[in-house]
């Protein structure tokens, strides 16, 4: 099932389907017209779908990268001796924050930051940092005492212990947190078009407000495929990380 880099055939097939759909959409006037005879312009043309996918992905990638940086750092801090006192506070903020509806976070960012792409990016990054922080703490806490003792016995410095033992062993759980964050971000970025960000939600929102079901279908199909593809990429990544962490320790790790 797996190929080079651990990317499965299913993932390749999904990627191919997405590229094909995005490239084919501008040429689908006739079939879309047949599907939606009452709609005058059945294919969204305000922006090309290539542009929408690129803008959507840029928003998701930038916010998720920032969230990963913040979340993993917060998680590392909370699991060090110097930061242990803050662990309950950080955990509480992560848990309470995730209770907030993502759309509500997006909406309340408007009075603070205004309309458009950059405020969407900040809102997405803040929200996404929460599950990543939580999972980094969970992952680093799950590293067995034995593994750490063994590394210490070998004379590992604290930094090497973290980089070569703890983080690789915690990677599957951290990746799971990043995956949750990215999937939420793809969905929230779609709604970001209601506050003026250019995303795959733009055709959906415009289609809904102008009663053009064709636009809704196009935007929804592309963004759904994109989300499923990225989820599969993470699935492959988690598998790879688990295999890798499995080689570092003999005892099996139960991963949530």
């Amino acid at each position, binding site marked *: 099932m797996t190929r080079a880099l651990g990317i499965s055939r299913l993932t390749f097939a999904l990627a191919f389907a997405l590229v094909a759909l995005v490239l084919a959409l501008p040429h689908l006037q006739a079939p879309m017209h047949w599907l939606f005879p009452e709609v005058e312009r059945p294919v969204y043309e305000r922006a090309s779908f290539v542009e929408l996918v690129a803008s959507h992905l840029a928003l998701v990638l930038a916010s998720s990268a920032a969230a990963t940086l913040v979340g993993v750092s917060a998680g590392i801090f909370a699991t060090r001796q110097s930061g242990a006192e803050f662990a309950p506070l950080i955990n509480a903020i992560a848990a309470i924050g995730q*209770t907030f509806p993502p759309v509500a976070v997006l909406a309340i960012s408007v009075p603070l930051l205004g309309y458009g792409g950059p405020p969407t990016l900040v809102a997405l990054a803040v929200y996404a940092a929460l599950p990543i922080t939580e999972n980094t703490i969970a992952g680093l806490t799950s590293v067995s005492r034995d593994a750490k003792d063994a590394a210490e016995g070998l004379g590992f410095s604290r930094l090497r212990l973290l980089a070569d033992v703890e983080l690789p062993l915690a990677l599957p759980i951290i990746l799971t947190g990043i995956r949750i964050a990215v999937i939420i971000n793809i969905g929230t970025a779609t709604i970001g078009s209601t506050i003026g960000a250019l995303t795959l939600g733009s055709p959906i929102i415009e289609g809904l407000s102008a009663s053009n079901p064709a636009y809704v279908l196009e935007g929804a199909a592309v963004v759904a495929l994109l989300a499923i593809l990225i989820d599969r990429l993470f699935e492959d990544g988690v598998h790879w990380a688990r295999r890798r962490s499995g080689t570092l320790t003999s005892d099996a790790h139960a991963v949530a």
Partner: protein
Amino acid sequence: MIRNRVLLVLVLAALVAALTLAFLGFAPNRLVSGRAITLFEAANGAGLALIVPCGVMLAAGAFLPQSRALLLAVLAAALVLALFLPLIAGRAATGLVATATPIARASLAGGFWIMELSAVLAAGDALRRLEAGLAMKAAVAIGVAAVLVVAGLSGAFDQLSLAKEAANRREAFADAVERHGFLVTVSVLLALMIGVPLGILAQRRPRWHGLVFGSLDIVQTIPSIALFGLLIGPLAALSDAFPQLRQLGISGIGVAPAIIALVLYSLLPMARGAFAGLSSVPASVVETARGMGMTGGQILLRVEAPIAFPVLLSGLRIVTVQAIGLAVVAALIGAGGLGSFVFLGLGQRALDLMLLGAVPTIFMALGVDFIFQLLLGMARRTP
């Protein structure tokens, strides 16, 4: 000598917010952006006489030995701040609006929220250091909420822009809250009725495990607005083909596609909760029950269900909190609820209207989460 660094960080955050950020925003009407009102402008002498000693107490709490008496004093000071900051804001809003035109608006600003959050987190930190049990934590949270609700009902916050907006749209607001609750309740109940059997199926027949969770995983991955949108076409076609369905309220937009999508999203956490709950039952317990001559149904209901209940309940918690958020998005396909204020407000650049939708959903989610945590705490204690 610093003895509580968490408290020190919180005090510093609140102090910086008090000194540099607006406590309230005050605008002559809702079109112009507001003037910043600091805490020291907003609080009168009596207010400051209350806040400053509490702040000093919290600051001192970071440096003194963490005895039980000190922690109780810190808790008390944090709670007084958490209670009186909103009351001071409400009072200041009343004073500000009284001096201006009736359309003037005073709204809570970033400084207020940071100070309030710091006070709440400081109280939480003190409770944790006191090793407070679930009952004490719940009593404190309910107490604070009750005081603020009573104050709100007696008009303490009436002149804050959010309360004004709610009063202006009293009926629409009540309808939206009711519709939101309806969407969430119906979809969670349906998800319970469908998701639990799916979880049981996946646990009893390992063959089905991959299919059930694989397909539910895909659904969970699809962005909510896309799933809502994808349901419009098929449902519209269905109601065109069978006009009697339309009389039942089933059409491309509105409540029907919203509930279908909410249920689809809720199935994964629900089925996962049921599956994990049943999987947590030790095999030996089931064997013993079988040895006593119990049937499969009896084992499920009397033996496995009670053990699986807490895990199932935590699944239900995830589902309900998630549904409250997703129901906001459902407003985009005409299902109503608090999301209609959010998107109307965003579209018209009427931010108070948007907040009237967003803030209640946040409190709804926090409240439901709190209730489920209490139930979970109780369920775990009585196995």
